[in-house]
């Protein structure tokens, strides 16, 4: 790499060429490894991954944003922050009873408050799996893979029932 008689600029030029060549080789190696990995990955699995990727990014930033709005007081909470220590040692049932909120989707009526606004981001992340499964369903139906389509639909049903609050029993 270094030749006798080279000035500083010559050395620097060769160093840059060397660094770029190594970076290009690393990229080629990474792409080759990815291509080999993707060769065995089904289309529906890639579709699931792509949908999940977008959803997680949206959910993460949304949750961070609503938490900032809540904790810095931009949106007033249902339970004032200073009073939280009196509530967080109660059970979930006791806390809900003390602020007058029921089970199921009753929290949705409180999203105008800073603390319950965060539940939207949590619900979004919890519901992401349903969206990803529905994204995958057309691939299975197109392949006439009815067994997996049935299992997938069963899973969507189970998750939807859990989300609906119908499987939440009041204690």
């Amino acid at each position: 790499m270094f030749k006798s008689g080279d000035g500083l600029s010559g050395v620097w030029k060769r160093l840059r060429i060397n660094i770029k060549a190594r970076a290009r080789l690393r990229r080629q190696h990474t792409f080759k490894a990815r291509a080999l990995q993707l060769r065995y990955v089904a289309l529906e699995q890639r579709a699931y991954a792509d949908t999940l990727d977008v959803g997680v990014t949206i959910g993460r930033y949304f949750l961070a944003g609503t938490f900032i709005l809540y904790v810095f007081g931009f949106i007033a909470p249902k339970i004032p922050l200073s009073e939280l220590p009196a509530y967080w040692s109660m059970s979930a049932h006791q806390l809900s009873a003390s602020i007058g909120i029921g089970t199921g989707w009753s929290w949705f009526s409180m999203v105008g408050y800073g603390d319950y606004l965060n539940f939207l981001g949590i619900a979004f992340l919890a519901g992401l799996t349903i969206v990803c499964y529905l994204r995958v369903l057309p691939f299975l139906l197109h392949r006439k893979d009815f067994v997996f389509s049935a299992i997938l639909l069963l899973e969507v049903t189970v998750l939807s029932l859990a989300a609906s609050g119908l499987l939440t029993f009041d204690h």
Partner: protein
Amino acid sequence: MRLSIAMILALVAVVLGDEPAMAQATAQAASALPWWAWVLLLLAVTFVLGIVAVIGGVGGGVLFVPIVSGLFPFHLDFVRGTGLLIALAGALAAGPTLLRGGMANLQLAILPALIASAAAIVGANIGLALPDNVVQLALGSIILGVVCLMALARKSAYPEVPKADALSVALRMHGVYHDPFSDRDIEWKVHRTPQGLALFVVIGMLAGMFGIGAGWANVPVLNLVMGVPLKVSVGTSSFILSIVDSAAAWVYLNHGAMLAVIAVPSMLGMMLGSTIGVGLLSRANVAVIRKVVIGLLLLAGVRSLLKGFGI
């Protein structure tokens, strides 16, 4: 490395502390400290747990629930709800990479995930209905079981599967993945599928009941019982976790067993800690950290049992 060992030892010292004195100290601290001090403490503790979880090879939930329920004045309902969220957030974040890399397999996961998620809903409802002391007793027992599993269970990188069983063939539970480290294609198939699926019922129930995620159980079942290669077991376990914990998280959410001021800083602390932990992984002595994690869990499990007995 020395700093993380020091932090872990500090946590051990606190967990090891005298139970009644600790309870009294926690109650006094709860009234003395403002809400934001607890949130910052939670951020710090979950940051350390995130580092330790990655290096020690355990899930965030299995460390979070027993340790935070012992150290902080939060009710166990909110701690369990947050534990599920932490596990869910981690699994969702890792999902795309694992799926694209072939380390998680959709066909392998889809039926165990269905069974475990249905069981998790039942488990979550049961867990929220049980009295606190019963939950503490059961949690302590489960944590001690996890300790035994971690200390004794073998792992097999490429299990020997002489013949795929009929159920796995019918469900197409087989595949090929390219291992970039060995630069070769690995074909795998599965056996003992009914036994594996039966175990996923138990795993789902426990995950929902205690909010501790299910990775500690998914991997041994997939790897040792069903014969899935270790890397695919770990990747698919994380993927199954995202589905199972989604189901259980809805039950906790609809029960109001989540507080944003506990959940969001915990998720943030864990994510940051995990990022640092991944960076330290190549330099840390994994065997030592794993022993420290086992010790920590042992103490947390004993502490939960003592709490359950009212001691």
